[in-house]
């Protein structure tokens, strides 16, 4: 099982510097792959539509996920509800490459997350701060992403989460070793993980940005703030020209410090998703699961 976890963390390492795109059909999946996505997230409705539709949101139809698996050669991810370990078992049964235990869907359990150490397929989980990230890793997550505020096209929360996580990491690095025990207690996480962060200055797994990324500049912003790659959900297929915008975001992630190139990439991309400001929304998905 130890090796399995290493292999699952390794897959996330291969995704680094890449863009993972939400897709709802095989056709969108092919557009995403063609545009340079390093993986796709298969789901029935993109977060903006989940938010608009309201109601209980669940794991996607396995037939729909299999259609997307058949359409592309890159890794395929899919979401299950927080705590819904049977949905996760089903995703493992259809040989998904990565499971996202996601706050975008309605939580199935308001206390416990899935014991991800019981699975052979890897999990990615959202986190708003270092404590959440390390708790998910303790439960077996092999990759972390910010939670952002899915489906809004507003990057403010992803920025907040990434800044929070990076500043807490810097704080741990600066501590004396005898202060780490108390830090572990306050973060509610195992001492060994706190020690790892102290010694290495980073999470023990790959850390992506997610939530509200809609433009090449948004993606580059998250990379400059310390993300190792980017999830783009509603931002692509809710925009005027998905293929062009997707390709531009991919290139912006590779050359995220080259402002001149990103300016060129940002020209004539068509309409960006309209988006909703943080203050205008009633349901804060990022508050699901801590």
């Amino acid at each position: 099982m130890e090796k399995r976890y290493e292999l699952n963390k390794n897959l996330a390492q291969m995704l680094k510097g890449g863009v993972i795109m939400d897709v709802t059909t095989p056709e969108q999946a092919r557009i995403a792959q063609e545009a340079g996505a390093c993986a796709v997230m298969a789901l029935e409705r993109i977060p903006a539509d989940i938010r608009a539709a309201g109601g209980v949101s669940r794991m996607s139809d396995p037939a729909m996920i299999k259609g997307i698996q058949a359409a592309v050669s890159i890794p395929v991810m899919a979401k299950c509800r927080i705590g819904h370990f049977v949905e996760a078992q089903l995703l493992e049964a259809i040989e998904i490459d990565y499971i996202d235990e996601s706050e975008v869907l309605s939580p199935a359990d308001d206390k416990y997350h899935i014991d991800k150490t019981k699975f052979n397929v890897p999990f990615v989980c959202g986190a708003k701060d270092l404590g959440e990230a390390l708790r998910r890793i303790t439960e077996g997550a092999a990759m972390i992403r910010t939670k952002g505020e899915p489906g809004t096209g507003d990057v403010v929360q992803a920025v907040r989460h990434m800044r929070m996580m990076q500043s807490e990491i810097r704080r741990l690095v600066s501590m004396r070793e005898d202060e780490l025990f108390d830090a572990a207690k306050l973060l509610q996480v195992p001492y060994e993980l706190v020690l790892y962060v102290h010694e290495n200055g980073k999470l023990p797994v790959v850390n992506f940005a997610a939530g509200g990324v809609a433009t090449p500049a948004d993606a580059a912003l998250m990379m400059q703030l310390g993300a190792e790659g980017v999830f783009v959900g509603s931002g692509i297929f809710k925009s005027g020209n998905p293929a062009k915008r997707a390709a531009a975001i991919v290139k912006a992630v590779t050359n995220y410090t080259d402002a001149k190139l990103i300016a060129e990439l940002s020209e004539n991309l068509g309409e960006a998703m309209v988006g909703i400001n943080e203050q205008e929304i009633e349901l804060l998905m990022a508050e699901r699961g801590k």
Partner: protein
Amino acid sequence: MTIAVLAVQGDFAEHEDALRSLGADCFEIRQLSDLDRPFDGLVLPGGESTVQGKLLRELGLFEPLKRKIESGLPVFGTCAGLILLADKLSNDDNVYFAALPATVRRNAYGRQLGSFYAEEEFAGLGRIPMTFIRAPFIESVRDGAEVLAEVGGNIVAARKGSVLGIAFHPEVDESRAVHKYFLDMIK
């Protein structure tokens, strides 16, 4: 010795760590202007070959790098890097640098559940750790390409002259043997 690491996507940072631990200098290639610096060898990291291949072309890196490889620049590709080096893919119409006379099968072990770890013989290096992540393998080699390692009857490492292609990821394991092998190729 200076090694350029293709850094458009994938686990290039792990390769840089491995190379630096062996005393090599490295820098990243992300755009055309990065090729202005002189270098003695090129590493093509793991990642998604479709992404890397597309970015190589769109960032204008493909042709200049191809010319350098053809003129004898030592090059070392792992996983996606092997796919970029192969002159034939059995389950994909794309061909990239076509520098290694070998037929490579993409995602040859299936999805992530098929990813695995093994320890096997590598020509001249003894038993080394081998981590396969949604890996390809080499179905056959031609034109004097040399098989360096096999796992379960499948070729997982091959070399022809200055071109080294590996199906697994030596950059994610502790052993630096394969990276040292590559640096020795350059000397």
